[in-house]
């Protein structure tokens, strides 16, 4: 089956520093990966995605890196701001017909003033 894990359940960073959140996955057949941000009381919000034919993708202040050799995914947030405090989930698209998302357990990012 598919499983998604994260290296750290919590991460604290100083405002203005860069944040790196890591994720490992087991299903080598996965071809689409997404990072979500979830604030308290809200549903997950799409941040950035990457397909398996890429190893890096950049957005506004965020970069996702994919290493298919070691089945590792990371999210880098530049110049972390207080509004970035949330739980971050990596997710992968399943290989089933529904293409449902399989989520990791999440990393709580806390931005310190």
């Amino acid at each position, binding site marked *: 089956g598919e499983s*998604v894990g994260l290296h750290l359940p919590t991460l604290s960073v100083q405002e203005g520093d860069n944040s790196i959140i890591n994720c490992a996955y087991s299903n080598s057949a996965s071809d*689409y990966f*997404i990072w*979500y941000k979830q604030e308290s*009381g*809200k*549903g*997950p*919000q*799409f941040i950035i*995605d990457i397909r398996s034919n890429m190893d890096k993708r950049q957005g506004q202040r965020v970069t996702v890196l994919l290493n298919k050799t070691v089945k590792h995914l990371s999210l880098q947030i530049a110049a972390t701001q207080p509004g970035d405090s949330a739980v971050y*989930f990596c*997710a992968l*698209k*399943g290989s*089933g*017909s*529904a*293409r*449902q*998302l*399989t*989520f*990791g*357990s*999440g990393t709580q990012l806390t931005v310190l003033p």
Partner: protein
Amino acid sequence: GAGVSQSPRYKVAKRGQDVALRCDPISGHVSLFWYQQALGQGPEFLTYFQNEAQLDKSGLPSDRFFAERPEGSVSTLKIQRTQQEDSAVYLCASSLVGLGGEQYFGPGTRLTVT
């Protein structure tokens, strides 16, 4: 434009009661997903609709869980004879296309079974 909405936002049920959770997807979105999120965990897939057809219900934890989307728009997740382990946030997501596309999540319904 309006996003995915869910109601109620909070539901407290006594063990053994039936509950119905509603999801209003983004207008025109073909696909609709239900997920269950336990406290401190990531969402877990329950079931998937493409228009009115329920194409995958492999994630439903028991036959007490039932979902429908009769007109291909609004969906209802029903849980019969609720048990304490059903306590969780139930998230609904919709996407524009059938087998891919970004999933947009609603705020969820927090169900507490006492």
